[in-house]
């Protein structure tokens, strides 16, 4: 293998001040400094001798028939090695996460703007691009469907004719009702009923490292793919049939990932690079530029939501009805699971006995939508939190107080009938953000004559020195599931080797977990130190030589692959103790307590949610010690020349599918909750917004790495802020993307990102490893509605759509 700058193992010493680098400490990430200084090797930095560059020709239309395709002029360009179209595919022609409905290359029709039509390999990226321009495609433009009305109109063009899976219309990807109680009777008891229509625009994940990878053909006829992705094994599962290879000949290695947020769950250039490499017999690299990246991955589903809530005059919710229509775009991607989330979480973190929710996703000719941080729960949270404020106002109640009266808690029933069986401190989180000190007023006022415009809406654009500026405060809280739901067999694999190197014990942790910037490799090292009592931990590159780690999504990796590392470490520790007893058992009576499989967690905290072993010997400080801390043997001494090497799978407790008509079922593994208070200042004349402060409180069960936890909450909050006030992919009525660049797709800059005080609760979930709760997504939910509530408070406007644009505030 001659590839350079391929991922290398990360050795982490991990000591932080006085700590041991175990769980609960803010050990620093090995990739942090490299990324900040520009030295981190991303997948776009991959290089191989003799490699070719791939380029993708994409559809300029949202819906068109391909009448003819002529690649001869492209093939004639000197330096071009291959031009492939649908007709050249060697085996499978379609792929998809949940349904294989997406063509690797368009066959006779293109269904969205930017759909791949042909791929080129050449000895220079510019040559490949120019050759692609010479491919002649004769398109006959077809009518488009772009929303529910056009997609379900009589005679509407069908995106995927011949579907027979029982949805109400072939252009509906999936539909999930959730029904509980008697809404009609509850409505009759309500003293106040409020209704609202809401809309969420199409948000992009906007990761900074565009799609890229390097496919290297192997001597055995297989392929080695170095790739930035979120889930190596699901990429492989989709790739093998397309390449016509058995899975064991499709080997993937994770390369440097520059962010993901859901956008790397689906395949992008993986199949294209592999096909070109196998066809030419040469390594092929593909890197999207920013423009192409906007067409190369799925986005967050835009949504239209209709809600009705009722409440009694004493401020108790009576019922909720909701209809949530998500635009899935041209292909299924993960739309069915997004629908399941929107439906099951659509009532929010509240106790409501009478519920009638319907969520569905459409097939349209808009860009395909799928996974993005928050995954269906974001859209619902924007709507139900707007409703909560509306109800509170109608009832003359404080919005926080009203929410607290209805907040769910441990033991509450979800609308799906699932009992929430771990802490759900919703009222407490709201109290904590409400009670934080308020940021000072008019922070732009300086000692001199001039206003500090950086503290004002418009910032350095110098649009106001305080004129027209009104402050507003808003609150929101949300509920997100953790892990894969609805009966999915969700598991992670970890391989742990403990060996003595130069007389020092070293743990090697090997998983296929995609480190996408969340800090998972740091957490794995912390867990290994805690469980094995070692200092040095080597994290092997993630690849498909080890079993699946599942996806880095659904806030699940610390729970799932972290859980797998913990359990495997405990099995390793048990084996070490067994060997120790075998060799040294006659030296000390304490050895007899070192039972098989009892685990060797430090502290020997029997009966904890961790399920750790009893009061026998344990691994600590590179040694085996008794419960009283007396040294029995050194780890290196016990290990000798023979490493302990174990690979195990870890599963969370099983879930159930939702009933197709009622939505009832134990569908989710775990819930996570976050509350926000937003303080904004709005230039009411120009419609410009400055978020002054965005305070959060979140229950994380157990903060394995507190610094990373706060980082996740900051990042999620900022992404939610972006959706509130600026981030939207604008799609024209004919399905064309109008702003595929960072010039016009705006994400928050540092001047848009406010102070973000964070209050972290740690209430253990007894079902989860170390009691932890997934962190990454919940803050993305409540951030958006809190910011918009604050803008409503400042302006008195209803603001039913995000992102809020200046025109929505000024009315023109």
């Amino acid at each position, binding site marked *: 293998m001659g590839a350079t700058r391929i991922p290398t193992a990360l050795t982490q010493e991990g000591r932080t001040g006085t700590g041991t680098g175990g769980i609960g400490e803010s050990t620093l990430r090995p990739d942090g400094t490299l990324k900040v200084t520009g030295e981190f090797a991303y997948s776009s930095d991959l290089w191989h001798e003799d490699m070719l560059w791939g380029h993708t020709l994409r559809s300029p239309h949202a819906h068109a028939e391909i009448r003819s395709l002529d690649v001869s002029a492209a093939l004639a360009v000197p330096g071009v090695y291959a031009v492939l179209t649908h007709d050249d595919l060697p085996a499978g022609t379609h792929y998809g996460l949940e349904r294989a409905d997406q063509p690797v290359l368009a066959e006779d029709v293109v269904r969205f703007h930017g759909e791949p039509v042909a791929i080129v390999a050449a000895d220079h990226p510019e040559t490949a691009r120019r050759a692609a321009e010479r491919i002649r495609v004769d398109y006959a433009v077809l009518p488009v469907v772009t929303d529910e009305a056009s997609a379900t109109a009589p005679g509407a063009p069908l995106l995927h004719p011949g579907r027979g899976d029982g949805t109400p219309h072939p252009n509906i990807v999936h539909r999930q009702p959730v029904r509980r109680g008697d809404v009609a009777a509850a409505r009759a008891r309500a003293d106040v009923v409020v209704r609202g229509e809401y809309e969420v625009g199409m948000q992009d994940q906007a990761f900074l490292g565009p799609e890229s990878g390097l496919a290297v053909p192997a001597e055995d006829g297989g392929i080695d793919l170095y790739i930035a992705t979120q889930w190596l094994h699901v990429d492989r599962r989709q790739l093998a049939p397309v390449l016509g290879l058995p899975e064991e000949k499709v080997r993937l290695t994770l390369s440097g990932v520059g962010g993901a947020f859901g956008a790397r769950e689906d395949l992008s250039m993986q199949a294209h690079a592999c096909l070109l490499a196998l066809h030419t017999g040469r390594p092929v690299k593909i890197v999207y530029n920013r423009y192409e990246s906007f067409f190369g991955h799925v986005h967050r589903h835009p949504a239209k939501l209709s809600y009705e809530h009722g409440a009694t005059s004493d401020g108790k919710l009576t019922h909720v009805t909701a209809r949530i229509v998500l635009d899935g775009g041209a292909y299924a991607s993960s739309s069915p699971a997004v629908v399941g989330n929107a439906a099951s979480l659509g009532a929010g973190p509240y106790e409501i006995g009478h519920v009638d929710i319907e969520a569905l996703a459409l097939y349209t000719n808009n860009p395909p939508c799928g996974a993005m941080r928050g995954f269906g729960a974001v859209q619902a949270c924007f709507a139900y939190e707007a409703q909560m404020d509306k109800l509170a106002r109608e009832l003359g109640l404080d919005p926080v107080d009203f929410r607290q009266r209805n907040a769910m808690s441990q033991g509450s029933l979800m609308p799906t009938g699932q009992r929430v069986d771990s802490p759900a401190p919703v009222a407490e989180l709201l109290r904590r953000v409400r009670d934080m000190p308020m940021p000072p007023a008019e922070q732009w006022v300086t000692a001199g004559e001039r206003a500090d415009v950086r503290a004002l809406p418009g910032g350095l*654009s*110098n649009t106001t020195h305080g004129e027209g500026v009104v402050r507003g405060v808003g609150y929101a809280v949300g509920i997100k599931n953790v892990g894969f739901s609805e009966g999915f067999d969700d598991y992670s694999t970890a391989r742990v080797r403990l060996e003595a190197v130069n007389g020092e014990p070293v743990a090697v942790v090997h998983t296929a977990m995609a480190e996408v910037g969340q800090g998972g490799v740091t957490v794995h090292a912390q867990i290994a130190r805690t469980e094995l009592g070692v200092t040095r931990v080597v994290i092997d590159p993630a690849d498909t030589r080890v079993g699946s780690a599942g996806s880095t999504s659904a806030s699940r990796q610390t729970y799932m692959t972290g859980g797998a590392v913990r359990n495997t470490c405990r099995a390793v520790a048990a084996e070490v103790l067994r060997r120790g007893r075998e060799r040294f058992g006659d030296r000390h009576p304490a050895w007899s307590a070192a039972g098989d499989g009892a685990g060797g967690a430090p502290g020997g905290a029997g009966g904890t949610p961790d399920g750790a072993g009893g009061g026998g010997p344990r691994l600590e400080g590179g040694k085996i010690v008794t419960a009283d801390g007396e040294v029995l043997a050194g780890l290196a001494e016990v290990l000798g020349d023979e490493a302990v090497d174990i690979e195990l799978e870890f599963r969370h407790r099983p879930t159930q599918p939702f009933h197709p008509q009622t939505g009832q079922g134990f569908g989710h593994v775990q819930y996570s909750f976050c509350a926000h208070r937003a303080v904004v200042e709005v230039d009411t004349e*120009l419609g410009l917004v400055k978020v002054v402060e965005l305070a959060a409180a979140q229950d994380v069960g157990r903060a394995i790495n507190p610094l990373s936890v706060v980082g996740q909450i900051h990042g999620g909050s900022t992404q939610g802020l972006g959706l509130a006030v*600026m981030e939207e992919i604008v799609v024209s009525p004919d399905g064309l993307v109008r702003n595929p*660049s960072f010039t*016009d797709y705006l994400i928050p*800059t540092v001047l848009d990102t406010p102070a973000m005080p964070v209050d972290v609760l740690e209430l253990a979930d007894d079902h989860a490893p170390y009691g932890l709760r997934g962190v990454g997504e919940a803050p993305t939910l409540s951030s958006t509605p809190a910011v918009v509530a604050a803008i409503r408070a400042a302006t008195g406007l209803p603001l039913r759509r995000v992102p809020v644009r*200046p025109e929505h505030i000024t009315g*023109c």
Partner: protein
Amino acid sequence: MDFLRPAGWEEALAAKAEHPDAVPIAGGTDLMVEINFGHRRPERLLDLTRIGELGEWGTDGDTVLLGASVPYTRIMERLRAELPGLALAAHTVASPQIRNRGGVGGNLGTASPAGDAHPALLAAGAEVEAESVRGSRLIPVDAFYTGVKRNALEPDELIKRVHIKKAAGPQQFSKVGTRNAMVIAVCAFGLALHPDTRTVRTGIGSAAPTPVRARAAEDFLAGVLEEDGLWESGAVLPPAAARRFAELAAGACNPIDDVRGSADYRRHAVTVMARRTLGWAWEDYRGTTRRSAEGGTPCA
């Protein structure tokens, strides 16, 4: 793509005369985006980065001679007193990295209505010094913008520098974007009070096919200031006059709906910016007249 690298100004003029299709590149902050996105594929680039004098500025009496490549960062940091309007505009240009590379010559060469420098140059009454092997000429900036992304340069001409009078009175610049930094203008407004000539000048960006002045607003305000003796008295500006000025400024707009904002919003925002910038500028002016009345340095 040919890449021409003249070592000096004369050589650059000769190259441009020989290859009128060559596209000049200095900071590259605009052109490279166009090239990277494939929007433009010039046959030839004319690299001006080796010509040191383009990155320099000096003064000639009461005029600043600003080299076409003087980066915005330098304008912000070094020319705040002489060119306050342009310095404010420079501060709103993109990011620090871009401001370190980009200069006024690029804005003028591209002549996009969204260029941040234009409203400030219009308000200040700048002149563009264009040169070719045939000679040199000064083009008033009012006459420089001839259409959407078109300017008055002849094919063989290069922008050498911009002549801008040192501010004799307050200048302001304001720009609306949908983000608090690093944003392309939805629209922008520049204002300069010229007490020495008792005139008012304005510039509007991104609200018409080209950067434009709001002449009716300028004439109206100059008239009010003259008739009411406000230049001398430094009295409070009647609010009705400020409102009328703002309405007339919006009347100079001919905006479009696009992905960045609606035409109606642009007109509205220009109204608000015109009223506010006038308020700030006039308060500044009143401050200086008050100080001079109290025995400070005489007002220009």
